């Protein structure tokens, strides 16, 4: 199979463009592609980005630098409570934020990756989540029509990846990473450990190489601020 290992600088320069929709893995710190995000901040000046990420990270790590630099037009997330700086930015009207229930967030991304244009759900019925959403009646009950989410680029952090792009996650790091890897035109996987192609048992691959464009090595994780 093709060797998809490259430098983080090359991967980022080749994949990321102004105005794109970028999915970023992670839940808290697990699975956040810190090394790739740092490269996006450092070696590119792309802006007007739409980020799709479970949360807004904490101040000083992850997507926070891009948010602070005003390079993000909109964040689609499920929870932003750990980043008061972002909440303040949002309250000043500097950045748009759309909040989606977490399981539906994951399902909208899965739909985008699996070629399913929309799903029906009753999650959020009777709450403000239903505002502005189309409803479909099924057996006399109303369901929300939730549209698929797709991205131009997915940035995700795995624990082990082989050179072809097959990837494996440890512990609770998998979260949104695998599904985001299926839903974007280009996929950059950073990995703590890069192994020879075939070194991950084929049954235990979490994200198959068919979805992956580049594999890059993870640098050290950021310390808590």
């Amino acid at each position: 199979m093709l060797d998809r290992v490259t430098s983080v600088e090359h991967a980022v320069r080749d994949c990321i463009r102004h105005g794109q929709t970028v999915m970023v893995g992670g839940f808290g710190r697990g699975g956040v592609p810190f090394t790739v995000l740092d490269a996006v901040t450092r070696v590119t000046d792309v802006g007007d980005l739409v980020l799709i990420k479970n949360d807004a990270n904490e101040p000083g790590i992850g997507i926070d630098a891009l948010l602070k630099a005003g390079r993000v037009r909109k964040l689609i997330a499920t929870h932003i409570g750990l980043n008061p700086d972002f909440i303040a930015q949002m309250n000043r009207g500097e950045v748009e934020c759309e909040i989606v229930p977490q399981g539906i967030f994951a399902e909208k991304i899965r739909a985008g990756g699996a070629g399913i244009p929309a799903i029906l759900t009753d999650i959020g019925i009777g709450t403000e989540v239903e505002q502005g959403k189309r409803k479909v009646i099924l057996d006399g009950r109303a369901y929300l029509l939730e549209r698929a989410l797709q991205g131009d680029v997915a940035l995700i952090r795995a624990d082990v990846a082989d050179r072809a792009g097959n990837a494996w996650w440890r512990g609770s790091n998998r979260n949104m990473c695998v599904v985001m890897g299926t839903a974007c035109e280009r996929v950059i996987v950073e990995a703590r450990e890069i192994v020879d192609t075939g070194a991950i048992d084929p049954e235990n691959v979490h994200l198959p190489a068919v979805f992956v464009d580049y594999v890059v090595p993870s640098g050290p994780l950021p310390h808590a601020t």
Partner: protein
Amino acid sequence: MPKRELKLEEKTLLSRAAREVRHGAFVNLGIGLPQYLPEYLPSAQEVTFHSENGFTGMGEGNPDGTPDSDIIDAGGRPCRVIKGAAFFDSLTSFAIVRGGNLDLAVLGAFEVAVNGDLANWKIPGKFIPGMGGGMELAQKANHVLVISHHIDKKGRGKLVNECRLPLTGKACVDTLVTDRAVFRLRNGRMTLTCVHSDHTPESVLDPIDADVSVADDLELWDPADR
């Protein structure tokens, strides 16, 4: 899991809430007070904890004290897993919830309405963190147990006639356990079914501004029964 010294009334409500957990159940614990529940469960009871960021089989923090940053709970704190745990992604995690395989969600609340409505995710203008997985847990766990102080810091009861805050879910709360009493959704109305032995129906109902009926089979529970 977080560790702070609990107040007496918190210990009381946790002791009572623990009695709502069935043997063999798969249980999700919301952030805050619910995370203290495990130590109130009888040790012979088999309960498996679900963490919505991606696993079943959550256990207490690392026994040797070294945090494993690859195993965190939904609040971001390092924890560990028990034998038989399974890690999965967010899709499977919420498929478990929406598909009816989560037996119990134990949640906190800003307000619970007498019709079972729950508000616990947003205080407009003040607290806008996002609902995370809260809506799925509230709407789709097979049983939803809210645990809460009976009266908030401003002296207002958590049980209300109608939620003023944005809803997390409609008519989703099955049981509310406070430090004074237990309420259950019966025929679509929250009904006082159990009073803790250091309280009376009056001391339970007088301070709250909600039209609650009292069960014919009202029970008394002694916190010393823990």
